[in-house]
């Protein structure tokens, strides 16, 4: 066990855990931040996507000891008032079915738009290829990303 100070959504949070514990389980089990989801545990589905200093990463394979000072943003910290262009676009296109993968989808898309404010279809395909939606909402996700790109 070791003590870690984490910068999560602009707040410093302290946890005492095994240094190998993936960020995902620290968020969920120790900090009760449930928006980041477990889907596969091997960085294959994208349900656990968060931002580390603005870059999309898979929290399920990220040992807590490797994070250090880096800023973590989860779905809960994406916007203060639910007004991120992607969140607005997600509502406009009424994207979710079951909704389980959607936080990860939005976090992947948010990292994409940050670096590439007007992505092509192919850019979107490439950036979102790591996020599985079992319900099959891909066409709506793509449309929502395009709408958000126009908004911002």
């Amino acid at each position, binding site marked *: 066990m070791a003590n870690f100070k984490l910068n999560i959504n602009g707040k410093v949070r302290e946890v005492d855990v095994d240094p190998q514990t993936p960020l995902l389980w620290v968020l969920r089990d120790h900090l009760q931040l449930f928006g980041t989801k477990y889907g596969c545990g091997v960085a294959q589905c994208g349900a656990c996507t968060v931002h580390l200093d603005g870059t999309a990463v898979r929290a399920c394979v990220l040992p807590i000891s490797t994070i250090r000072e880096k800023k973590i943003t989860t779905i809960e910290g994406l916007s203060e008032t639910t007004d991120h262009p992607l969140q607005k676009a997600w509502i406009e296109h009424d994207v979710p079915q079951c909704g389980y993968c959607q936080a990860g989808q939005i976090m992947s898309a948010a990292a994409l738009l940050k670096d590439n404010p007007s992505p092509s279809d192919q850019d979107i395909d490439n950036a979102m290829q790591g996020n599985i939606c079992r319900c099959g909402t*891909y066409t709506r996700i793509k449309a929502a990303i395009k709408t958000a790109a126009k908004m911002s």
Partner: protein
Amino acid sequence: MSFIKTKVGRRSFLKNTSLAGGGIILGFNWLASCQSQPVEEIMAMPDAWFDINAYLKIGDNGLVTIMSPNPEFGQNVMTSMPMVVAEELDVDWKNVLVEQAPYNADMYGFQFTGGSRGMMSRWESLRMAGATARHMLKEAAAQKWQVPTREITTDAGKLYHKESGKSAGYGEMADAASKVAVPDEVKLKEIRDFKIIGHSQKNVEGKNIITGKPLFGMDYYKEGMKYAMVEHPPAFGMELKSFDASEAKAMPGIKDVFTIKAYPEDFVKGGFDTNAFPELIAIVGNSTWEVMQAKKKLKVEWEPFKTYEEKFDARGNTRSVTIPAGLESTENHLAMMTEYDKKPGKIVRKDGDPEAAFAKAAKVIERTYTAPYLAHNTMEPINTFAHVDNGKVFIAGPLQAPGFIEPAISASTGIPAEDIDIEMTRMGGGFGRRAYSHYMIEAALISQKMNAPIKLMYSREDDMTNGIYRPTYRATYRAAFDENNNLIGIHVKAGGVPESPLFADRFPAGAVENYLAEEWEIPSNISIGAFRAPRSNFMAGAEQSFLDEIAEIAGKDPIDFRLELLRKAKDNPVGKNNDYDADRYAGVLELVKEKADWGNKEANVYRGVSAYFCHRSYAAHVLDLVIEDKKPVVKKVTCAIDCGIVVNPDAAANMAEGGVVDGIGNALFGEMTFKEGVPQKKNFDRYRMIRMREAPKEIEVHFVKNEIAPTGMGEPPFPPIFGAVANALYKATGQRRYTQPFLGNNIDLEIKGTGS
């Protein structure tokens, strides 16, 4: 004018006492109400709520809370079911709050999500709940104003008496209305007067989803709860021999390791009590990660089991099901299915004289279709929160039907059903998997043993390897033609491990003079279960590919050929018990033909058409395929669906789009295989799922407009897409596809088709 007898679902008029009385709505986060509109646009919370019936309560300020009775797994019933109540109640949708109803069979009847039955089975009771409440509000106003009830009208949450000029909001009459006797009969709205039904409304949980609110079973949390996982045998056909948990128990944060048996030995199972692995090892600890690490340290000896019998309830009688011993492999399944296919099957339908037709045929074609096992792979893995405490069981987790599992939880824990409470959390997908909720018994037993609240979670690997798969199937179709290439007979022989996929009374039965249907089944110990449109999800692809081939031989356009058969089925049906409506079937084909502009396709686009009937609805797809870098790219899918009245059109379109994507993914890549009983894919690194790049670039959904009470929607668009993929691939490559998954080995595609 339509009236409805309220007696049909009289128990629905019991009040929902768990929510009774004034005050604010329960604030427990996973039970939180969902606003149909952003919070700033709705009125403030009322000071008091008045229960009108189990489905709704009205606040003193006119705000209405509507209970959604069935579990939600993404089909959006949590929005569409309350919409139906709101319509008949005649309120403004923006003043409606929605809550997931508690599990209570006395009040809500069968709370089940599956079989595309939701809206189909609830339509009348939801309308009645709203209409009855509206009537009671009118009576309350009539009494207060001393005028006849029939003179009172309503509009958007207000009551009016035109003659006296009096008016009042529902909130003002809610207290009095809650005391009015429930009428014996109520008048329903005319369909043409609908203001909410048929008008797209946003998902009531949309905002909660996109902000990461804890809605799912996985998110259920209670201070002090322990985390649990289970270890099941690595292979079907194996059981526990012995284990050594000393190393696991010594790992940090581990509280206990022990075995559990979900079902008592003598328990007579219900149809959904499937469970491949009777005995499991449970590991309990302080956190998920610690339990995952300890699980790896278990030293377990497994051994092959002997053939055994399980007892199932069969409408009051007990039937025995044999679970055969053995370590099964896909290779053997395929060989056995080939063997069974050669033997005579059980004849399930025979029209005309098929033997004679085939004997005199000028031409006969025979085609064999196969499909592998599929894993459900719900994005939210299996999990449940359980707390067995003080002689009571509390369960919260994702499941499709609490009524299915309650008897077994009761038998296993020894706690009577009335002391079992099951909270239905939002499900991160179901697809049939969560109709089999053995994991809830497992969680309850672990909690009981630990005497603590626990959260049971399956890892993705545990989830993917513990069974309840879509079975593997095989179907051989033969068609007989006369010398002019007219179709004169069809013979289908289908089977699977362990069930036959055949629906003998479905199209093209009824449209073919000489028709023979046979089936066979091979017992197995690999557990199977319902998977989105069970059996149809295989038969549609086989049948619709075969019809495409017949049309080609007959020299006919594939849509016109199907329409011709349907005309025959309507005007001059062959045989009895044809279970489809030929007009509605033809309707979706005609609609898709028009909307896809069937006669005019772009150059280098290869088109496949397919249509199917299941769950009382009709769906037809035209799939436009292009080949880029030797890979198939679905440019567009045009869908036409007849599911009767469409309650929430945009959400229904979302379901159809999802069905299309799901079907394309499974047709191209979906596959689970076995070697010596061991599932060969354990996670998404090897189990290929459809992803963004392979999804259609565009999906256009059209609904047939009619006034038929809603029929199934979640499943019907799924089966036919398999045929559309196969038929489009043929056009592109010149090769018919008979074996699913069509791109199993990630093969390259060459454009060699005619495309015509």
